[in-house]
């Protein structure tokens, strides 16, 4: 009977790579546009799908959940919290924080986007 020992580099999630992915995806798609109600659906879908493709290309044995919130800047506040029941040694989320200060991507002056990646070991 053989035991499956995944290689250590496959199992550790690299925070810097994730940071780059998040930055690229948000700024690439929303960098120069004004908020457009008709297109926001398409933007959210594209951001999330692109970040998922980049994550899969990292080649690690993880399941991913990516959430993106795009909001028009009107002075309104938004709070997000998450509570997770998982294996703390192998799973996590990025950005790693317990306050509501999530990576805020600015695009022109009209909208902001927040991207959150959760990874779970298989």
């Amino acid at each position, binding site marked *: *009977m053989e*035991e499956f020992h995944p290689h250590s580099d496959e199992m550790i999630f690299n925070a810097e790579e994730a940071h780059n992915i998040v930055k690229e995806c948000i700024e690439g798609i929303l960098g120069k546009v004004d*908020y457009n*109600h008709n297109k*926001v*659906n398409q*933007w*959210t*879908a594209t951001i*999330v*799908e692109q970040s*998922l493709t980049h*994550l*899969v290309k990292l080649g690690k044995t993880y*399941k*991913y*959940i*990516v*959430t*993106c*919130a*795009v*909001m*028009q*800047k*009107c*002075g*309104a*506040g*938004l*709070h*997000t*919290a*998450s*509570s*997770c*029941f*998982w*294996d703390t040694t192998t*799973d996590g989320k990025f950005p790693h924080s317990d306050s*509501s200060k999530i990576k805020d991507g600015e695009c022109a002056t009209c909208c902001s986007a927040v991207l*959150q990646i*959760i990874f*779970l070991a*298989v």
Partner: protein
Amino acid sequence: MSDIAKDKAARLLKKRGSVSSLSSHEVRAKEILGKNKDSMSTVSYMDEPGHDIPRLAVQLENTYQLGPAKRFPVVTVNNILKDVLTNYLQEEKYEAELCRQMTKTISEVIKARVKDLMIPRYKIIVIVHIGQLNEQSMRIGSRCIWDPASDTFSSYAFKNTSLFALANVYAVYFE
């Protein structure tokens, strides 16, 4: 004599299905010490045929289970979300400090209630967004890479005069 002691120790290890992280040599040494004190009087089970080679302690054993025994009840969880959000937020007005605490509390409450359903081998992720209603538009989307046969999600959006709230629960099967 010491060989028999070692065999018995190894069988004790297997019998208990040990999940220890000690290497097998260390554990066997401990067992042997204990055995020597009690001499041979603690034997209480029959020899198993075919298991003459002592194996290394395994940490996780095969369950030979291909999918979840009990599936995640999406409808029940939808009702839980509706319940929790309505109870906590029906009368509230949007205030920065209150909503900051409220998001954390609500996500903990939802996680506790979903855990009470006792669905085995599922990892649970709860995400709650609470925002102010201010004539602005917003879109929240999520995509997942998982096994659609066993993993699923549940979602509920709540709105009152001054705020909106969105709760998402993702359930991922752990093989």
